[in-house]
């Protein structure tokens, strides 16, 4: 008796231990990946000091200390430096053997430039030029004061250029429209028929008139533009790399520059905050490896919202039908089984379905019916945010159906009968009793759907995601929400930057940062849904009696 008892106890402890271990291991792995992502993702924006090394052979390099390791074959310590200056060296990183390094220093006046192209530049500023004329520091001024000032001026010029270009496009718009119509007529072979030719000639006349009307304005703008562009090109900094090569950097191509070795913790923190802000609020640069990811955040959130809007009504209606209206039997059991199994279909299969059904069949028909004037250029007949959202809605439908069904089953029968006994119709009963009580279940389904949908990449790649979307799907021009537009997505951004970019090593930190952001966004969306659910739970807590 006694031995049996202790045996059982032992066995029990073993199970407890094993399952506990399993939990600990999975938690540890989750914590590990989050810590890695946090450290690497957030560390990226910190302005690193600029290290200058001089080698024994006289070469000199300058840049951010990136990595250090022991070469296993030669047993020599090696140092990796991000030397930037891709336009000079043709690479961003260099490994140096420690025993070949003669000296290391952190020169005060070393500058880090972030540029629109070619990545960072590390060097020293020698002089500043505005309009090809050197700018001398005035009394009590240093060169440093001057360069920040001329950079500001150059940025203003650049803005003026952009404004003028936009203005010109606006003025040209009516003419461009007429010309597009003419091209379409030509494509349709209209010149061969008499009416077609007449139409074409009329358009030609209109185009000529418009041209005459707007050409003075355009000429004026062009003249202004020419001076500005010339000034822009003639404004540059003369810089010197670590090994003494001089180079000119156009001021307008510099996003920002700073003297990291002079900066204290406070100014570095301010710089860091600025970089973080740029990351979440700006457009990407340099094939997505620099700058911000705002369009991708926007695309992800908008797509998840559209998906939710589509999946919840359908999922809830399906669940209501299955539970309240359909006669329970073999057919319903089969349907329920099929819906559950849909959740296990690989997501790319949904993507292919979305492409075939939504993009080609539905989108193609919409184009035929409503946008035939633009054909053969597709409007809805190509990937877009609407089709991607609907594809994901389909993908997440089973989750919502199952969760809603559970919510509906939890509604007490007594309440349903009570409502019917008061003379409500079945639909009134469903709307007033079943749906409110099932709402927590529905929201649980939504939470699961968001978690699954926000992270999917494969089906999006063939239904509308792109690596760079020039315009957001929501903007100030009518009809404000452009469901046909392509969009960017954080998940795809990770894939694109990490595996498709020309400079994978330099893009690595961006992958971590974007992954971190994606996690944060999914968590935030979920917290929002959980918050609503908890409020509803409180409201509809079941009777204690």
């Amino acid at each position, binding site marked *: 008796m006694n031995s049996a008892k202790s045996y059982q106890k032992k066995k029990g402890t073993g199970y407890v231990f094993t399952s506990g271990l399993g939990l600990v291991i999975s938690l540890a792995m989750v914590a590990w990946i989050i810590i890695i992502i946090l450290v690497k993702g957030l560390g990226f924006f910190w302005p690193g000091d600029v290290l200058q090394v001089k080698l024994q052979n006289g070469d000199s390099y300058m840049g951010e200390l990136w990595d250090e390791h022991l070469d296993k074959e030669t047993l020599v310590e090696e140092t990796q430096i991000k030397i930037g200056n891709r336009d000079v060296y043709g690479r961003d990183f260099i490994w140096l053997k420690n025993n070949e390094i003669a000296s290391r220093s952190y020169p005060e006046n070393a500058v880090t430039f972030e540029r629109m192209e070619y990545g960072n530049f590390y060097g020293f500023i020698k002089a500043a030029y505005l309009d090809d004329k050197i700018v001398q520091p005035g009394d009590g001024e240093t060169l440093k004061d001057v360069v920040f000032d001329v950079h500001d001026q150059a940025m203003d010029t650049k803005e003026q250029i952009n404004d003028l270009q936009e203005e010109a496009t606006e003025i040209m718009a009516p003419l461009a429209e007429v010309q597009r119509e003419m091209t379409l007529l030509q494509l349709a072979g209209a010149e061969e028929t008499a009416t077609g030719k007449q139409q074409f000639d009329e358009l030609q006349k209109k185009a000529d008139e418009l041209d005459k009307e707007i050409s003075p304005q355009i000429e004026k703008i062009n003249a202004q533009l020419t001076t500005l562009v010339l000034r822009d090109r003639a404004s540059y900094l003369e810089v010197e790399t670590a090994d003494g090569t001089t180079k000119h950097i156009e001021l307008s191509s510099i996003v920002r520059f700073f003297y990291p070795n002079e900066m204290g913790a406070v100014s570095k923190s301010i710089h860091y905050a600025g970089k973080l802000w740029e990351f979440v609020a700006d457009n990407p640069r340099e094939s997505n490896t620099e700058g911000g990811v705002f369009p991708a955040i926007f695309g992800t959130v908008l797509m998840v919202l559209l998906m939710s809007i589509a999946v919840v009504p359908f999922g809830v209606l399906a669940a209501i039908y299955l539970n309240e209206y359909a*006669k329970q039997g073999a057919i319903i059991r089969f349907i329920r089984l099929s819906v559950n199994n849909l959740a296990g279909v690989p997501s790319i299969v949904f993507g292919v379905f979305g492409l075939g059904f939504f993009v080609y069949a539905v989108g193609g028909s919409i184009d035929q019916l409503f946008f035939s004037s633009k054909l053969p250029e597709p409007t809805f007949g190509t990937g877009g945010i609407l089709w991607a959202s609907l594809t994901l809605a389909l993908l997440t439908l089973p989750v919502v159906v199952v969760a809603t069904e559970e919510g509906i089953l939890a509604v*007490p029968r*007594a*309440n349903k*009968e*009570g*409502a*019917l*006994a*008061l*003379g*409500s*119709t079945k639909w*009134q009963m469903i709307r*007033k*009793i079943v749906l*409110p*009580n099932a709402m927590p279940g529905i929201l649980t389904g939504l939470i699961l759907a968001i978690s699954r949908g926000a992270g999917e990449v494969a089906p999006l790649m063939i239904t509308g995601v792109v690596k760079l979307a020039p315009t957001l799907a929501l903007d100030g021009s009518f009809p404000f929400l452009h469901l046909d537009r392509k969009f960017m997505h954080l998940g795809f951004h990770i894939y694109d930057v990490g595996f498709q970019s020309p400079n994978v090593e330099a893009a690595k930190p961006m992958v971590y940062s974007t992954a971190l952001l994606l996690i944060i966004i999914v968590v935030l969306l979920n917290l929002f849904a959980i918050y609503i659910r908890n409020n509803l739970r409180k*409201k*509809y*807590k*079941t*009777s*204690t*009696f």
Partner: protein
Amino acid sequence: MIETESGVFLEKTKKDEILTPETKIDKSVKPVLAMSNEKIVIETKTLDFYYNADAHALKNINIHIPDKKVTAFIGPSGCGKSTLLRCFNRMNDLISDAFHTGEILINGVDIYKEGTRLEDLRKQVGMVFQKSNPFPMSIWENVAFGPKVNGINDKDELNEIVESALKQGDLWREVKDRMQNSALDLSGGQQQRLCIARALANKPEIILMDEPASALDPISTGKIEETIEELKKNYTIVIVTHNMQQAARISDYTAFMMLGELIEVDLTKKIFTNPTQKLTEDYITGRFG
């Protein structure tokens, strides 16, 4: 009191060989009471009810239920009291395999007549369940539920209806200052009176009550009984109860059922003092069960 399942009851009676219904029902005595001078509200004609082909729950029920009176149904557990009650407002329609033969008339009209709106019938015939079932809404919303689904939307009118229903349900005094609180925060007895008030808000003609006080303490039960006493001035009340004293206290007529059959219906006083059927007497004196 009878607490056993119908199956257990059968087994026991057979073993003890006290009673078998077939032998003991005195067929010469008419089970239906023709209440001569009273207006009949509910009437069933040769009603047979089946939950499915194998479950014959009601057998040849013929009963007249008079206007503005309290009629109590008593009988051992599983004898079909709830089933009969739920026939009167067609709640049994929810059970997919169930069917019936015979007729159920309310005010002389067959409730299964084509074109009868189920919602209208249930508005006319209110129901209070054994276990109180307030909706997870405010007290006000609970009482206004019936009028609202029946198409009354005017806020003032609703307020008036809610107030008068709660007064009739004897709950107004206790809840008038917290109408927007959740109904689930009320006590068990208050919840049941809320359910009564909720049924009254529909201004029904008939109220069906299936053991409305069986889950309540004696004080709450007393309150419910007082409420019923008050209500019978304006409503026809049909009540199922397991509590013989309760039936004797509050009802004008009592019907005794057993194994799906209606054994005897009569004035409550007569049933409890001088029943016609031996079976009724045995049940009332507690000789079986």
